[in-house]
C-alpha cells in the first residue's frame, strides 16, 4: 500500500495521546485496530497528516463484567476477545450473537469494539447493538472524562460526537433490568461483507413481561438507526405475536435505506421487519420453553 505521507506517533499514556491529538488540531487520526483506517489510507480516501497509535498504552484491553451485569469494554479490546468470551454468552446474549458476525475472523482478531463505535459507519455492527442495549462511550479529553450514550454518539456517516482531542477509552453496557435476552441478525452477501441489513434487538424480561427493550438497525440510514418507538411499544407486556408484529412494523418505518447493489430500499425495509420478528419470536419461544 502506498498511502500519502503521514507522521506516526505511538504514545505510552492517554495524556500523551490527548496532547498529540491537540497538536494535530483536528487532522490527527487515532490508530487502534486499523481495520477501517488502513483501507482508507490505502485507497487514499483519507490522508491524515498524523496517526496516533494507541496500541502501546497499557490498561486499555479490558473486558470486565460487574456483579450487577454491567459490562466495560476497553479501547483495545478486540472483537475476537468478545467472540471468545464464555461469560459474554451467559451475560449478554445480544452482544454474543453479534460478536461472531462482525466482519470476518481476520478483522475480528485485530479490530476493536470501541474503534468500531467511534468510526461511526452506518454499516457498523456494534453501534446498533449498543443502541439496543442503551450502552455508552466513555470519552477522555484534556478536561477529563464524559459518558456519551451511543445513540447520541453518531451524528452522520463517519461523524461522531467526540471533539478532536478526545479519545474513546471505554464502552459501557448498563446492568439489565431482568433477564437479558435478544439477538442479532445480519444479512450479508458474503462473510466479511458489510451488512445489507442487520438488526440488533434486546429485551430484558422480568416476571414474564418486557421490562426494557432496545432495537438498533444497521445499514438502513445515514447513521445507526434507533428504533426507539418500536422498542418502547414492547415494554410493559409479554412478547406476543401481535406485539412482535407491531414492533417489527414500527422498526421498518424507522428504516430509511437506499437502493444499491446490495438490494432495493423496499427489500431492506422488509428485511428489517423480518429480522425484528425473527429475533423476538425466537426470544418468545425460548421463554415458553423455559416456562
Amino acid at each position, binding site marked *: 500500500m*502506498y498511502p*500519502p*505521507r503521514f507522521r506516526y506517533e505511538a504514545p505510552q499514556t492517554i495524556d500523551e495521546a490527548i496532547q498529540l491529538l491537540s497538536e494535530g488540531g483536528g487532522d490527527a487520526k487515532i490508530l487502534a485496530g486499523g481495520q477501517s483506517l488502513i*483501507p482508507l489510507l490505502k*485507497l*487514499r480516501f483519507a490522508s491524515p497528516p498524523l496517526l496516533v497509535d494507541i496500541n502501546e498504552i497499557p490498561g486499555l484491553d479490558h473486558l470486565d463484567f460487574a456483579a450487577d451485569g454491567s459490562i466495560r469494554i476497553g479501547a483495545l479490546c478486540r472483537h475476537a476477545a468478545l467472540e471468545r468470551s464464555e461469560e459474554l454468552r451467559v451475560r449478554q446474549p445480544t452482544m454474543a450473537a453479534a460478536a461472531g458476525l462482525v466482519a*470476518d*475472523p481476520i478483522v475480528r482478531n485485530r479490530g476493536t469494539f470501541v474503534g468500531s463505535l467511534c468510526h461511526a459507519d452506518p454499516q457498523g455492527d456494534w453501534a446498533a447493538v449498543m443502541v439496543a442495549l442503551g450502552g455508552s462511550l466513555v470519552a477522555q479529553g484534556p478536561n477529563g472524562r464524559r459518558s456519551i450514550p451511543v445513540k447520541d454518539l453518531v451524528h452522520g456517516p463517519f461523524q461522531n460526537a467526540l471533539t478532536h482531542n478526545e479519545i474513546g477509552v471505554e464502552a459501557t453496557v448498563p446492568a439489565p433490568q431482568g433477564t437479558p435476552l435478544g439477538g442479532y441478525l445480519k*444479512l450479508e*452477501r*458474503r*462473510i*466479511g*461483507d*458489510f451488512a*445489507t441489513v442487520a438488526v440488533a434487538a434486546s429485551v430484558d424480561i422480568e416476571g414474564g413481561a418486557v421490562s426494557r427493550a432496545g432495537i438498533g438497525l444497521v445499514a438502513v440510514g445515514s447513521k445507526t438507526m434507533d428504533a426507539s418507538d418500536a422498542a418502547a411499544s414492547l415494554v410493559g407486556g409479554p412478547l406476543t405475536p401481535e406485539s412482535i408484529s407491531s414492533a417489527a412494523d414500527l422498526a421498518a418505518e424507522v428504516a430509511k435505506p*437506499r*437502493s*444499491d*447493489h*446490495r*438490494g*432495493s*430500499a423496499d*427489500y*431492506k425495509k*422488509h*428485511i428489517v421487519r*423480518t429480522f425484528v420478528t*425473527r429475533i423476538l419470536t425466537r426470544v418468545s419461544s425460548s421463554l415458553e420453553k423455559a416456562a
Partner: protein
Amino acid sequence: MVLDELKIGGLGSSRRRVEDDRFIRGKGNYVDDIVLPGMLHMEILRSPVAHARIKKIDTTRAWDMPGVRLVLTGEMMAARNLAWMPTLSYDTQAVLATDKVRFQGQEVACVVADDPYIAKDAIEAIDVEYEVLPAIVSPEQALAPEAPLIRDDKANQQDNVIFDWEVGDKAGTDAAFARADVVSKIEMHYPRSHPSPIETCGSIADFDRATEKLTVYMTSQAPHIIRAAVALVAELPEHMIRIVSPDIGGGFGNKVPVYPGYVASILASILLERPVKWIEDKTSNLMSTGFGRDVYLQGEMALRADGKILAVRMHTDSDHGAFFSDAQPSKFKIGLMHSTFACYDIPTAHLTAKGVYTNKAPGGVAYRCSFRVTEAMYFQERMVQAAADDLGMDQAEFRRRNFVRDDDFPHRTAFGFLTDSGQYGKCLDVGLEAIGYEDFLKEKEEAAKRGKLLGIGISTMTEPLGAGNSREYDILGIKMFDSAELRVHMTGKAILRTGAKTQGQGHETTWGQIVAHELGIPAEDVLVEEGDTDTAPFGMGTYASRSTPVAGAAVSMVARKIRAKARKLAAHLLEASEEDIEWELGRFHLRGDPSRGVTIQECAMAAYSNLPDGLEPGLENVAYYDPPNLTWPFACYIATVEVDPGTGVWDVLRVVAVDDCGVRINPMIVEGQIMGGLTEAYAMANMQFITFDEEGNCIGGNYMDYLLPTAWETPGFELHEVVTPCPHHPIGAKGIGECATVGGPAAFVNAVMDALKGHDVRNIDMPLLPDRVYKAMTERTDVSGAPPLRME
C-alpha cells in the same frame, strides 16, 4: 522387474506439486519481487468518468515534484505513433487517451518516479479538464438510434456495433420451428464478472541502450504472443525482445490481452534508459483490465411434445466495452459460443451475435473458459431447464432423451463442431445416483408441505477445450499449435520447456509426469521451465484449457522422439539391431531375453560418451504439436438448495460433480481444478458481479464490492468421475481446468429456479442475490440484472 509407473510419478500419480514448496514458503518470484538496479516506478492516472472529451491536461505540478522522472501523456505517445495500439481482435485501443476517455478507469497519463509513493503523489498533481458526455452502459443503450458514437476515432464507424455474426442454418431452423409442438423462450443476462487473479497485472521494462535489447518481465499467460505484439507495435526487431513471465499469481484469462501499462512502461524505459516497473493496484485491475462475460441472450427452442429438441435459435448481444480487445480465434467473433448444445443431438440450429461498444472497460476475455464457452453452456442449461418445465417433463429425463448417444460418435453438431467421444448418459446417471435424485424429489415434496422451499439443479455439458487445430484456430493469423523441447542430460536428468505458461495449473509437476510415462525417467528428475521467450520454444500460451491438450501432447511427442533416438543408442549398447530391441517403461531389452537390457539413463550417458558411427551426439529434441481436433471433456454438476421464503437467501445443501476429462495425469491436481472451478461457479451464481450506474461509474471496482468467495461460505463438493479417453490425444487426456467454471453456474441457478417452481418465474439473472430472489418469488416476475443499476 518392470518399473512401477506410479512410483516414478507417472500418469495417475497424485504427486505433490513441485512448485508449492516455494509458494508456500513465500519464495515465489513474481514480477513485483524482481528488483533491478536503477529501477524506477510507474503509476497510471485513470479517468474518473466514463465518457468525456479531454479539454486540457496540465502536468506542470507533477513535473515539478522532486523524484519525478517522466510524465507521459497521450500527446507524447501520439508523437511516437504509440497513442493507439492494435488489439488481439483487429481493433485499436488507446494506450493513453488523446481525444476522449471512453470508460471509467481508462489510462490518461503516466508518471515515472524514483519510488511508488512519489509516483502516486504525482498522479494526484496532474490536472485534467473533462467535458462529460452521456455514458452508455448496456447494448440496449448502445443500439438505440440516438446513441452517441463511442468510437468516433474510427473513420468508418457509424454506430456502436462491432460485429454482426451468424452461424448455423437459418432456413432449416425456421422450418423446424414452424412444425414444433411447443416453443420454449427465455431471455437472460450473463453478468460482467472479473477473473480477478490475486496477483494484478504488471511489468518491468528494461531497455539496454548499449545492447539495444529490450527485456520485459511481465504477467503474461502468453509471452510469445506478447513478443510478437511488441515487435509489431514498437517496431523493434523480434530477436532483440525478450519477454519473461516469471511466477504468475493466477491468470484466468485476465493476463492474455496487451494492456496500456505494458506499452507505457516499455516506452518509459526506452526514453529513460532505465528499468521501469509498473504494478497495478487491485482497483485498477478490477476497473480496467479484461473482464469476463457481459452477454445477453434471447433463446428459443423448438420442441416436439415427446421431449425431442427439434431446433435451437439464439441471439446474443455482447458488451465488449470501449475497445474490442479480447483474444478470440479470428474466425469466430463471439468465440466458441456456437459450441452450445454440443452434448445434445439437435438436428438444426441458428445463432446470431451482435457485439457492441459501451463506455465500460474493454474485455470479454475467456475468464477460465474456452472463448465464451462459459456463456454458451450456461445459456444451454438454463434453456434446457426452461424447456423441460414447459413440457412438464422431468429435467433429467429431458436431458437423457436428447443426449448424443455413446455409439453416435464422431458426431457433427448442428453448429459444425465435431465431437469425438462421450458417455453423457452414464455421466448423468452417476450424478443422479450420487445425489440420490429420487429421494431428493420426495424430500422436496415433503418439505413443501412444511413451507420449505427445496430445489435441485442439473447442468450437463460437453465443451471444446484445447484450441486449435491450426486450420480453424488462430489469433491475429498466428496458428494455435504448441510446442515442447526436451533435453536429457548425460546422467538421465532432464530439462523440459514448453510454449505454454503455468499460472497455478501445476505444469512443473504434471509435465514431468508425462515424461515419466513416456520415458521412465522419474518425474522428479525433470525440471520444467516456461515463460522465457529467449529459451522456450514458440507457443501460444496457457488459456482456454489448452495446456494439456496441446502443449501436453507436445511433451508426449517430444519424449517419443527422444525414445526413438534412445532406441538406436540401446541397440548400439546391446550390440543388436534396432528391430530386436523392445521397450518397457524406462528400459530397452533384447527381444526374447528381457534380462539383457539398458535403462534410459544408460542410453542418455551413451548419447554423450559412447555413440555408434553416424549418430549425432546429444539427446534432445523439440516437437510442435498441431492437434487434429479440440478435446471434448464432459460433466454433470448437480446442486441442491434451500431457499428462505422470508428473505430470498439460499443455502447450498449439496453439490455433486461428475467430470470426464479422459486420462487423469495427476488426479489431485484435477480435483483441485474442479473444486476451484466450482467455487468460482458458486460465486458467479451467488454473489459476484460488476455493474454500472447511469453515469457509467463502475460498481465492483474493489474487494468490498466485488466479492470473492472464501472458505467460510463456499459449500463442500462431492467429486466423481467417468473416464473416456480422448481418441486423438497421445495419452488420452482432455482439458479440465475450466469445466466446473463453465458448467457449474447453471447447476446452482437451476436449483434455485427449481425451488421457485410454481411461482411463475422463468429467470433471475445472476448473481442470485437475496433481494432478486425475494422479488421474483413475491412479485412472481423475472428479475433482470442488466445495468444501469439504480444507486440512490
